[in-house]
C-alpha cells in the first residue's frame, strides 16, 4: 500500500500544477449542474396564442380570459377566420390557435356539447404536448365552473368519469426534482471518465510510462494509484452537487443521504475504471478520447433522462441493462424522492458493484508493462 500512496501523492502533485485540469475537476461540474438544471426546463411559459372567435359571446370571452390569466399563454392575435390563424401558425407568430365555433355559448348554456378547437404547432413535440395539456386543463377548469359536464373540449374529452391524477413522490411534477439528481450523476461520470481516460495514455505519449514500467510497481498498484485521486474528486463533486440540489434547487431528500453516498462511492469506480481501461488500451490521447466519447454519448443519451427508457426500442432497452447511468439515476431518484432503503435498491447496487469489479479487473489485465 505504501507504493500506492506514493503514486497518489505524485498524481496529486501533478494535478495541483495543472490548473486547467484542476478547474475542470473542481469548478466545471458546479457550473454545469447549475446551467444545465436551469436550461433543461420542461415548463414552458409565454406560448403565443392566436384566437379565432366566431361566437363573440361572453362565455367565449371568459374562457379566453382564463388563458390570459396564466403565465403560460400570451394572446398575440385575434383573427376573424381559421384561414388567417393558420397563417399565424405557419409563419411561427403563434404556437397554438384556439377556435371558438359559432354558437359556442348557446351550446354550452343549453347543456349540449360545446366544442372549442385547439390547433397546435407540433414541430417541437415536447412543446406541443405541454401546450395542449395546459390548454385542456384550463378548459376543464372552466367547464367545472360553468356547469358540471357541459363543455367537452375536443382536447380533453372528460365526461362522466373524471380522472384525478395524484403525482406521488413529486406532487407538483417539478421537473427539477426529477432532473437535478440525474444531471448531477451524468456530469460527474463524464468528467471523471474523461480525466482517467486521458491519464495513462498521456504518460505513454510523454514517455514517462517507460521509466515507470521498469520499476517494481505492480499493475494493480498502478491502477489503484490512478483511480483513487479521481475517485475522491468525484465524491467531492457529488458533495457540492448535493448541496446545490438541496439549497438551490430544493430537491427533496426523503431517504438516507449517507446511503446514497455509499452507493455513489461504488458507482464512481465504474466510469473511473472504464476510463482507465480505455486509456491502457490506447496509444494516443486522441484515440482514447474518441473511444471514451463513443461510450459516454451512448450512456448519456440512452440513460433515460431525456427519453423515458420505456419508449425506447427493445435493443436500446437491452443495452441499458449494462448502462451504469441507468442504475445510478434510478437509485438516486428512489432514495432522494421516495425514501427507498438499501433493501429496496439492493438489486441495482449489486449490479453496479459487479460492473465496478469487472471493469477494473479488465483495466489491470489490459495494462501492460511489457510489449510483445
Amino acid at each position, binding site marked *: 500500500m505504501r507504493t500506492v500512496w*506514493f503514486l497518489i*501523492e505524485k498524481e496529486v*502533485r501533478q494535478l495541483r500544477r495543472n490548473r486547467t485540469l484542476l478547474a475542470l475537476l473542481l469548478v466545471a461540474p458546479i457550473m454545469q449542474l447549475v446551467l444545465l438544471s436551469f436550461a433543461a426546463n420542461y415548463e414552458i411559459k409565454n406560448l403565443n396564442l392566436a384566437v379565432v372567435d366566431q361566437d363573440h359571446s361572453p362565455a367565449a370571452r371568459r374562457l379566453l380570459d382564463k388563458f390570459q390569466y396564466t403565465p403560460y399563454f400570451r394572446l398575440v392575435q385575434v383573427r376573424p377566420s381559421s384561414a388567417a390563424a393558420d397563417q399565424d401558425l405557419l409563419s411561427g407568430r403563434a404556437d397554438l390557435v384556439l377556435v371558438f365555433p359559432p354558437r359556442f355559448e348557446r351550446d354550452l348554456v343549453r347543456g349540449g356539447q360545446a366544442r372549442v378547437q385547439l390547433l397546435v404547432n407540433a414541430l417541437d413535440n415536447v412543446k406541443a404536448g405541454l401546450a395542449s395539456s395546459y390548454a385542456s386543463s384550463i378548459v376543464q377548469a372552466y367547464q367545472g365552473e360553468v356547469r358540471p359536464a357541459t363543455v367537452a373540449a375536443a382536447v380533453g374529452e372528460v365526461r362522466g368519469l373524471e380522472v384525478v391524477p395524484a403525482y406521488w413522490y413529486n406532487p407538483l411534477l417539478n421537473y427539477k426534482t426529477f432532473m437535478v439528481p440525474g444531471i448531477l450523476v451524468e456530469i460527474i461520470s463524464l468528467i471523471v471518465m474523461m480525466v482517467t481516460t486521458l491519464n495513462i495514455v498521456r504518460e505513454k505519449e510523454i*514517455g514517462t510510462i517507460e*521509466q515507470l514500467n521498469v520499476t*517494481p510497481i505492480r499493475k494493480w498498484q498502478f491502477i489503484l494509484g490512478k483511480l483513487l485521486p479521481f475517485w475522491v474528486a468525484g465524491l467531492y463533486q457529488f458533495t457540492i452537487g448535493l448541496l446545490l440540489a438541496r439549497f438551490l434547487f430544493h430537491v427533496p431528500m426523503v431517504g438516507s443521504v449517507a446511503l446514497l453516498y455509499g452507493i455513489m462511492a461504488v458507482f464512481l469506480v465504474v466510469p473511473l475504471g472504464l476510463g482507465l481501461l480505455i486509456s491502457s488500451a490506447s496509444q494516443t490521447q486522441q484515440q482514447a478520447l474518441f473511444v471514451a466519447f463513443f461510450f459516454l454519448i451512448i450512456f448519456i443519451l440512452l440513460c433515460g433522462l431525456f427519453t423515458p427508457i420505456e419508449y425506447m426500442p427493445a435493443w436500446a432497452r437491452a443495452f441499458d441493462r449494462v448502462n451504469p447511468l441507468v442504475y445510478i439515476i434510478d437509485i438516486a431518484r428512489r432514495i432522494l424522492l421516495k425514501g427507498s432503503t438499501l433493501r429496496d435498491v439492493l438489486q441495482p447496487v449489486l449490479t453496479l458493484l459487479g460492473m465496478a469489479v469487472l471493469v477494473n479487473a479488465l483495466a489491470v489485465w489490459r495494462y501492460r508493462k*511489457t510489449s510483445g
Partner: protein
Amino acid sequence: MPAVELTNISKAYGATQAVRNVSLTVEPGELFGLIGPDGAGKTTLFRILATLLLADAGTATVAKHDVVREFRAIRNVVGYMPGRFSLYQDLTVQENLEFFAAVFRTTVRENYELVRDIYEQLVPFKDRRAGALSGGMKQKLALCCALIHKPELLLLDEPTTGVDAVSRQEFWHMLSTLKERGITIVVSTPYMDEAALCERVALLQTGQVLRVDTPAALRESYPWPLYAVRAARMHPLLQDLRAYPAAHSCYAFGETAHLSLAQPDAAAEAHLKAYLTAKGHHDVSVAPVPATIEDTFMDLLQTHHSAPVS
C-alpha cells in the same frame, strides 16, 4: 557468470527486422558500449534487457535472471535510462528523485552516497521543474533516478545525445566513477569518440553485431595503410582521392580526408602529393595516421555491405 548474456536474440516490428540473431555477453563490472548509427537496433536491445519488450526469438539473462520468466527480479536490480527523457516534467528535481526512490521501496537518504557527486550539481535547481532543466541537467537527473535504488546494472540508451560537449565529458567521467563502484554499465552512443571510453564495444549495424572487442583491438585490427590528406578545397579533394588508382576507400574525417590504400606503398606520400598537385590542388599535406574506431567501423560497414551476412 556474465552480468548480461544475449543468445541469438531477434526482434521484428512488422516487416522491419530490428534485431537479428544477436549474441553478446557483458562481464560483471564492465563498461560496455553499443555503438552504431540510428536504426542499428540499440534501443530494441535495451528494451529487451529492461524487460519492456519481448524478443521474438532467443534468450537473454540479466544479473542471472531470465528476462521473460524472472522479469520482476530484474526490475529491482536494473537502472534504465531511456533515450527519450522520461521523468515527470511537471515534478521538481527533488520530487522526481524521491518518487523513484519511493517506488523502489527505498529512500534518497539511504542511497545518497551513490548519487551524491551527480546530485550535488543539481542541488541549486532542486525545486525547479524537471521540464525546465537544460539538456545536460536533465541527463544528470535521469541518471540519478536510474541509480537511486542502487542497481547492479545500468542500461543507458544514448545518454549523451543532444547534450553539449562539456556535459558529455562530465557524464562519461561520472560513468567511470560508477564503474569503480562495481556497477556494470551498458551504454549506447552514436559518437565514436565515446566508444573509445568503453572497455569493450559492440559495433552494430542494421540489427546485427559486426564485431565485439576492446577499443584498442578494434583500432589495431584496421587492415589498410591509412593517410590523412588535407587540401584547400575538400569536396573536389574527396572526389579526386576516390579516383586515385591505389585507393581502397576514402571519406571525410573532420577537416581531413582519410584515405586507405589497397596495397602498402613506401613512397605513398610523395605519390599522392604529385597526383593531387597534378589535379590542381593547393596546400596539399599528406601524413600517415593510426586508425581510429571510426575507421574500423567504416571499414566493417563497407565489407558488411559488399558481403551481407544472411
